[in-house]
């Protein structure tokens, strides 16, 4: 028996969030989600909702676990909702808490009191177009083709921890490939590396950038990055999220002109074996 019911329309999601906001004294949320993404989750039957203790809780199914999003009138109501057995019965949950380091730490209090443990911290980095960085001369990589979708997903799943990095579904990858937002470097039949991005108007987010094992130290990563910049001439702000403890990656991003902007994502998970 579960309190969570499938969300079948975007309007139901919007109404649930707005209802909590109307009652809020100290509105508490980790819902910073693009409505288009919510619609994709609803269409895929991946989103469920429950209202417990005046708090809206949304669970999004992802591989072997679920992402938790909350919309609470205040931290006390959130803590009461998280303490309910209906939540504990849902298995492995992960939650992303966003804000300055201090704000994310404050948001974490009701979660820590209810069995969630810190799992990783990501920091956001930003690059303003024109900032000093690596050379941006054209060096085309190439956009991915529909037949690359499974190989792209396989590379992403082999390279990143989905509990930390919010990996895309197969449908998300196919959609990004269709939009020309996945660049690939080929090495014979194999993919030597990829760069997955998402552009909205003047802002572009670099979601994943990787070079496959066995293809490193050949300049593939640099080639992908240069091609990314070349394909985004109108973009003024480039963003990315990186694991705080990944010093090598942070050094590389600095090289390409990115610097931290003070926003953090504290990832917490419920107790138990992450995989």
């Amino acid at each position, binding site marked *: 028996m579960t309190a969570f019911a499938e969300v079948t329309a975007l309007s139901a999601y919007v109404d649930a969030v*707005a209802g909590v*906001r109307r009652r809020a004294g100290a509105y508490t949320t980790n819902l*910073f989600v693009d409505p288009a993404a919510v619609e994709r989750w609803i269409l895929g039957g991946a989103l469920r909702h429950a209202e417990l203790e005046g708090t809206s809780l949304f669970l999004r199914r992802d591989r072997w676990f679920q992402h938790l999003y909350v919309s609470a009138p205040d931290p006390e109501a959130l803590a009461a909702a998280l303490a309910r057995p209906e939540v504990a019965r849902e298995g492995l949950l992960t939650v992303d808490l966003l*804000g300055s380091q201090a704000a994310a730490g404050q948001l974490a209090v009701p979660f820590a009191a209810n069995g969630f443990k810190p799992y990783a911290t990501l920091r956001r980095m930003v690059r*303003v177009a024109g900032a000093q960085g690596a050379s941006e001369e054209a060096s085309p990589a190439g956009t991915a083709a529909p037949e690359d979708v499974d190989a792209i997903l396989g590379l992403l799943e082999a390279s990143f921890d989905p509990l930390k990095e919010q990996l895309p579904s197969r449908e998300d990858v196919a959609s990004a490939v269709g939009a020309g937002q996945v660049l690939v470097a080929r090495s014979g039949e194999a993919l030597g590396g990829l760069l997955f991005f998402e*552009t909205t*108007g*003047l802002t572009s987010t670099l979601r994943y950038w990787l070079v496959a094992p066995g293809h490193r130290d050949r300049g593939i990563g640099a080639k992908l990055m240069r091609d990314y910049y070349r394909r985004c001439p109108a*973009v003024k702000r480039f963003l990315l999220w990186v694991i705080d403890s990944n010093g090598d990656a942070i050094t590389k991003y600095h090289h390409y002109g990115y610097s931290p902007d003070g*926003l953090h994502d504290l990832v917490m998970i419920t107790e138990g074996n992450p995989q």
Partner: protein
Amino acid sequence: MKSVLEILNGIRPEFDFSTSQAFIADGMLDSFDLLTLVSELEAEYGIRIDGQAIVPENFVSIEAIEGLVRKSVRP
């Protein structure tokens, strides 16, 4: 007192906010920027912006943000 445009320029100096009527769709403000903007508007104008008013349509243009400021209450 700073104008809304001056506050926006302080948050995202890389963009020209005077040329857009669709800040969200044009990628000039995201959800996280809205939180910063709300804090700065509240501090600058001595207002409290209601949680239910923090929706994208209230932040699409300078006129929309000025309207939000006018509707918000002084605590």
